[in-house]
């Protein structure tokens, strides 16, 4: 297919100029054109949440967003969700709480969880379950994922130590 539409967008803080076809999704652009494979394709229908990324600070499904609509937008993927080589507080909490099993859903989970914690400092377990209800995981039964987000919240608001 001819890749004929030029777009400019910011990805993880860097300006990128790329050419895309009208049908290309943001997910395909990230994974195939920009080699940002941390964002996963689980269903390609916007159901599983594995492709969740930040677009102008809000979580979206990259598989449902056409790349051509991303002109001028600021995209942050899992690769950009942490400062330098350090894991973010949320990422580290997922590691420490044992929330990572096969790991395929985890990048999307971390983006959704980070979005929640940007809005709410002290989410209840129910708040966390609601905020993550659009992210499917088949390995963990979610218990340790909920625990991880709760741990991250407590580290961020200073109730417990261990944050980086």
């Amino acid at each position, binding site marked *: *297919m001819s890749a004929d539409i030029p777009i400019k967008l910011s990805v993880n803080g860097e300006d990128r100029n790329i050419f895309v*076809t009208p*049908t290309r999704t943001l997910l395909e652009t990230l*994974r195939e054109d920009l*080699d*940002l*494979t*941390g*964002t*996963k*394709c*689980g*269903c*390609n*229908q916007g*159901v*599983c949440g*594995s492709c969740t990324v930040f677009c102008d600070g809000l979580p979206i499904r990259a598989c449902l967003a056409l790349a051509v609509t991303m002109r001028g937008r600021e995209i942050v*993927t*899992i*690769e950009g*969700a*942490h400062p330098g080589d350090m*894991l973010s507080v949320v*990422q*580290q909490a*997922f*590691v*420490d709480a*044992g929330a*990572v*099993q*096969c*790991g*395929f*859903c*985890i*990048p999307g989970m*971390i983006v959704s969880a980070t979005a929640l914690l940007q809005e709410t400092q002290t989410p209840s*377990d*129910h708040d*966390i*379950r*609601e905020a*993550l*209800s*659009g*992210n*499917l*995981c*088949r*390995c*963990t*039964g*979610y*218990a*340790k*994922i*909920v625990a991880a987000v709760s741990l991250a919240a407590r580290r961020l608001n200073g109730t417990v130590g261990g944050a980086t």
Partner: protein
Amino acid sequence: MSEAMTLGTSLPRLEAAAKAAGAARYTADMELPGMLHGAVLGSPHAHARIASYDVSAARALPGVKAVVTGADIPQRRFGLTVADESALAIGKVRYIGDPVAAVAAVDTEIAARALELIKVAYEELPAMVTPEQAMADGAPLIHEGYAGYPKIFDCISSGNIMSLARISAGDAEAAWSQCDLIVEDVYETQAQYHAYMEPVAAIAEVDAVGRMTIWSTTQSVFRTQACVSEALGLPRGKVRAISPYVGGGFGGKSEPGVQLVAAVLARACGRPVKVVLRREDDIMTMRSRHPAKIRLKTGARRDGTILARTGDVIMDGGAYADDSPAAMTIVLHFLRGPYRIPNVAFDGRVVYTNKLRAGAFRAVGNAQATFACESQLDELAARLSIDPIDLRLKNAIQQGDRWLGGHAVGSASLAECLTKVRVASDWDTRRAADQKATTTGKRRALGVSSIVYTCAYLSTSAVVRLLEDGTVSVATGAVDIGQGSDTAIAQMCAAALQLPIASVTLVRPDTDATPYNSGTNASRVTYMLGQVIAQAADQVRTQIFRHAADLFECAEEDIELLPGGRVAIKGVSERALTFAEISRRAHFQVGGPIIGQGSYVFDAGKNDPKLAIAKGTISLEHIGTYVFGAQVVDVEVDEITGKVEVLEAWSAHDVGRAVNRQAVEGQIEGAFAQGLGYALMEELVWDDGQLINPSFMDYKIPGTLDMPPKFHPIIIENPEPTHPFGVKGIGEPPVIGVAPAIANAIEQASGVRIRRLPLTGERVLRALVTRDSRAP
């Protein structure tokens, strides 16, 4: 670091940070120079003969590099129990989606367009989409050549029935007359989709001397190697299989996914080819849990002593055998349940139909058997007016008992597991109170289920090498599909050599680099790998001691291992030698590099015909080490809508010894969730051979809000005597009891017994309406 510190510690997984950072690469994330993209054309018919192909238009499309059909590939078959599959359909198609042709192109869009240009002429045949249709008199054969296919078991077959099997012990028919009460009914279970979050993917590359390398999402690099080798007629050594990170499997990736398609395309075009299935295609063409229909009959004395049980099982195997005959053997092996029932007779038939193949799925066969058995046990308890846990305890298998056919049971801790969940859930108080305490339209009650499974299975091996700097490298063919075995293996190796975990590195599964392991199945990896890690580490330690004895000029018996990779003369720790010093000596001066290896095949012993008669089954000689558990669920039934919610759950399991507590809890929580989906919502539905819900829109798996807000994993540790680290497997057991426990709670809450999974709102509501229309 002492052994105690390493074993049982809740260490984060070795690769957790890489996964959380998005840096861990799965198969679909890989890119090779010159790589093409493959796509697969599926059959539009459930059963048809292929008359002809026309691929000229597809081949002519710019960007298309190869088009292959069943006519272009080696006319060879492969399969785990029966060699009935080919890389692409040869001669006929047997279900909607059966791979007919494949294309390799420069990108996925061109590959998809090329598929639309392939023309296949079919002659349709009658489709048989239920076992009953396939077993009907005069039903056309789905596999005409079945009798001639190679098989790995003592096969008894008839028409479309691929396997007839029977296991019996005692004399059930004679025992019925001694029973005061007999219950009999039919229990039905559905096709469940594995729904691993990573759809199947493979990359194949043929090198300049014709050697094939396959990177793929798989539960066994050795099964991948074997299937590609058999399908293409290549010697084993000409096929190399590698597993990058795998995004879940649950049995669905035990046998091949798209490796064969990638392999035939790579051979056809001489370039690397990547094939990644879309979710819809993964659901339509991979595999499901076997749908089963189980007629079960159980008889007992008035005091609750169970005397006899018979069962007749029909399972839908779908279009290809995969592991179906083995799955049926497992069903029959577990239909007695973890109870002392002296007289049993179980018959099973697995039938080919024109649908998606059924195959291994977390607790294969056992989940179906247990739904029937544990449901019926509560029905029996109700009729006998005995508490369900008391009835289970009265008949529970005890220490020293033998399983059907004579297997040693090991630590028989069912009673302990039942007692733990009884106490933790406040069962005795709540059972007496719950069903009376209702709020508007809602009733709430507890339900229970016993669980038993095995965790030792087939064979495995490991190589442990002491590297020049005194750290160790562990090579095993065991694939960590997300369940955490890499970390458990590293922990066991670190414990055996008293090394910090950071000094142990695992070699990724690669048939060129790692020794044989049959696969990540049957809750076996931690148990089996523990056996060979202990052997290999012991050999490494022996060699280290030999060097140390030389250097210290003392006897080997006087050397002791110290924590942190050091050895010394006993009691003289201040003059210790490091592993690095010993290893450098071995590498460059004396003896050669230090390598330990372990090989192990589990031997449960031959079936004792005096204890049980088995016919038409897979051998159970290399399967054993029994794992016990029990679950209680607190369930609320909304009698207005039929909706069932699990509010709280307790899941107790004897794991022998928890190598990594956090990982064990994760297995219990995750398996419970999958059991909850099986119990309440998941079902693949076909309409005349067409799967009608192949997407996550229409096939729902549990999300965060479906899980009980309160969940209690209860870890019991009775060290397994046959194991060097005392461990048992825990990957599958917690999935097994969820469905019957919920069905039992629903009956306790609302007085309706539902014998068909899943227990959807619609099904529960119908049962409630029937109940109320019968009420006086």
